[in-house]
């Protein structure tokens, strides 16, 4: 029995060692830097700097607002999509899964590049609208919040849809049929049966989408440009441009706290089952 334990300890120890040295230690170091003054000693100056400058408060507000909009749009699109996937035939479902998996497994950098081509002045969107006479000037969607939202919804829709799909496939279809025989029309049974039972999946998907979009970097910085900074791109410029690592660490801690605050009530509710 004791040697069994030794065997298992041996099996788990490389992983634990890697996590401790290469994961938890770096995070601890970052937490330390965020409250350390340049010349050593404890300080909250980096956090004070963030809170006192309207520019950074603006960045924070943009991050929260965009994440909220992106999550909402993803849920509004992802829920019907998941429902259709759950209730369609196996062949159609397979195709829909491929439509979702192929982009999911392609680098975010490449997908963002695709949107850059589409949104560019004279690109498909503005070109077509111009040719149809719907817009007067040849406009560009690049460097707008709309571009960020569209790009991010494409990134997050697979996460949202798969979270909801997992829950909907477990709903007993006879409940819907029962509702229909009791006189509900399609929309009523959808509203009173499917929607409430899907809530755990929608909640899980939304939290995932919110945290992922709050911390996403590539898509907002390429589609939004330097003038529409979000927290993640602001962290990146503090590291690479102003070389202010303490301030970068402080911003990372603020992002981390924001995400933890979002997650805690959720883990309380579910006991971490959908983590």
């Amino acid at each position, binding site marked *: 029995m004791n040697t069994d*334990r030794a*065997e*298992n*300890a041996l099996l*788990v120890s*490389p*992983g634990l060692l*890697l*996590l401790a040295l*290469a994961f938890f*230690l*770096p*995070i601890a*170091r*970052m937490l330390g830097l965020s409250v350390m003054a340049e010349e050593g000693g404890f300080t909250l100056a980096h956090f004070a700097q963030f809170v006192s400058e309207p520019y950074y408060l603006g960045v924070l507000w943009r991050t929260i607002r965009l994440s909220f909009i992106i999550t909402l749009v993803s849920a509004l699109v992802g829920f*019907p*999509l998941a429902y*259709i996937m759950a209730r369609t035939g196996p062949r159609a*479902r*397979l195709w*829909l*899964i*491929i*439509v*979702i*998996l*192929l*982009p999911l*497994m*392609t*680098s*975010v*950098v490449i*997908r*963002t*590049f*695709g*949107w*850059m*081509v*589409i949104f560019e002045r004279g690109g*498909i969107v503005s070109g077509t609208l111009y040719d149809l006479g719907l817009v007067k000037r040849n406009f560009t969607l690049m460097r707008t919040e709309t571009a960020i939202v*569209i790009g991010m919804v*494409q990134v997050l829709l697979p996460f949202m849809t*798969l979270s909801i799909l997992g829950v909907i496939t477990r709903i007993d279809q006879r409940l819907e049929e029962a509702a*229909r025989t009791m006189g509900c*029309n*399609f929309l009523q049974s959808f509203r009173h049966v499917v929607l409430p039972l899907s809530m755990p999946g929608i909640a899980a998907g939304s939290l995932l989408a919110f*945290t992922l979009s709050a*911390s996403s970097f*590539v898509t907002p910085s*390429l589609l939004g440009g330097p003038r529409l900074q979000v927290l*993640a791109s602001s962290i990146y410029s503090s*590291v690479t441009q102003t070389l202010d690592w303490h301030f970068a*660490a402080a911003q*990372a801690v603020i*992002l*981390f706290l924001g*995400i933890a605050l979002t997650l805690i009530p959720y883990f309380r509710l579910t006991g971490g089952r959908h*983590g």
Partner: protein
Amino acid sequence: MVKAVPLWLKIATYVFIALIVVLMLAPLIVVVGTSFSANQFIAFPPRDFSLEWYRKVLSSDAYLGSAGLSLAIALLVTLSAVIIGGAAAIAIHRRQLPKSELLGALFLSPLILPTIIYAIGLLMFWSAAFGRVSFVTLWIGHTAITLPYVVRTTLAVLTESDPFIEEAARTMGAGRIQRLFFVVLPQCRPGLAAGAFFAFNISFDEAVLSLFLRTPDLTTLPVQIYGQLEFSPDPSVAAVSTIMIALTVLLILVIDRVLGIGKFASA
């Protein structure tokens, strides 16, 4: 039978699905289309077709070097994540160690932490402890963020496997090593395979961690593409991206052969 779905809703469904397909695939199709352009400028749809940009890419040291680096890291990461994560999952699954639940949560924790936060932590820690970041830094960092996927897929497979097979092997006189390699590991195989696919794909496509750890001679392919997009996108970026998309399609086909794509989606 209950009355079917009303007609207008059926039509709405088809329109909705068409829009989803456009939303999901448009960026990829546009990138692929642009790569065949004969023009200097990025334009979709391209007016004249040529394979010129592929020739440029395949003779460019910058692209080939970063592609080699990405491939080397992805392969090493897959190997280390599968070995370390698989071993950990087996140990956690047996529940003989104290606090197995906590151990499981610990191994999944890199999933919850945003990559950008980990990236800046690793950069700061490594610079303070060892100075310049190196190939090893990227390898370790990528392994840390792909480890949870291997642990999760392997645990999922083990939970569904028959726990008495190992006991049976024990009563039949199989030794510790024999049980591990001939009984437990074969049981884990689908989980390890799924984890390996995840690890390879995530490491190969990973941009944020590699971006923070980049040095002039340590630029992975996604970072190289990111740099080009920030600075001067031309159709050669599209050609590289198209090659990466083709690789992804290939990977998905392999996954479908080995595991079945539907199963993979629920992992």
